[in-house]
């Protein structure tokens, strides 16, 4: 169902796409993003320590979370002619091959400005155990309809 600015209210939810993470999906993200950091490729390298962190194996790109959140937001915003304007994210846990992750959003508030209308959304990505792997916030603009024909 297409949402409208007037009907939206705080607490409304947005469901994003489930995404199965595998060595192949991570490799494909390397090719799609040109990010070939060995964090995502090299099992031997990942046995080592990173400062105080040991990941224990290759991990998914944090920006894969970002890409899935973007996909959720743009798919949600496109039908009502709204525009995805901002996304801020923080990673909480590494994601590994075999995990299944899903982005979701919850409408936090609405704001009318001098020239437009905005919806603020709390976003998160959870893994198959219900653990948050990424959190953040987004802004989607619902432009005021210009003189309709």
């Amino acid at each position: 169902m297409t949402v409208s600015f007037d009907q939206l209210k705080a607490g409304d939810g947005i469901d994003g796409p489930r995404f199965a993470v595998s060595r192949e999906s991570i490799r494909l993200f390397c090719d799609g993003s040109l990010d070939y950091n060995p964090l995502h490729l090299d099992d031997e390298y990942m046995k080592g320590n990173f400062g105080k962190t040991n990941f224990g194996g290759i991990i998914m790109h944090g920006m894969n979370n970002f890409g899935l959140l973007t996909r959720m937001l743009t798919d949600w915003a496109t039908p009502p002619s709204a525009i995805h304007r901002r996304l801020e994210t923080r990673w909480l846990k590494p994601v590994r091959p075999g995990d299944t992750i899903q982005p979701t959003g919850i409408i936090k508030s609405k704001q009318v400005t001098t020239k437009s209308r905005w919806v603020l959304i709390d976003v998160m990505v959870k893994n198959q155990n219900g653990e948050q792997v990424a959190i953040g916030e987004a802004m989607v603009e619902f432009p005021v309809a210009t003189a309709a024909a």
Partner: protein
Amino acid sequence: MAQASSAQSADFETDFWKDATSRKVWDEIVPGEPRKTLPYKLTQEAIALFCKAVGETNPLYLDEAAAKAGPYGGLVAPPSIHILLMFACTPTDDWMRSPGTVNAGQSWSYNIPARPGDTITLQARALDKFIRRERLFVVHDNVFFNQHGDVICSGRGQTIRPM
């Protein structure tokens, strides 16, 4: 070493160890100093491959006829295309490519979409650096432009530097 998929720039160096010793470590990164960047021609093939990697199916990015009838009058890239543009516009000796660089979070604002055929340029710098809980952080800020000088998007991120 693995070659980048042909959908991406064919001469992209996928071995991030190459030139690793010529990259700046945390101590040498000067906040405020512009980073050297490379212009990048964004192709529909590169957009399609990026879309595949995150499972994008929105016709605005992939279906020329539907995109033509849509709000942008033609195909566009998803907003998150800056994930690709960041590396596409970064030379091999840049610290952003240092193996073990850990992304700690990002924030991006979107102005207009990138389109296939655009020649993208990046203005970027380290903005700040700090130490927290024995980890070395660098804040980087970035603005992507199209060939008309229009801002596509701007963003800021934090990385934890390899030690």
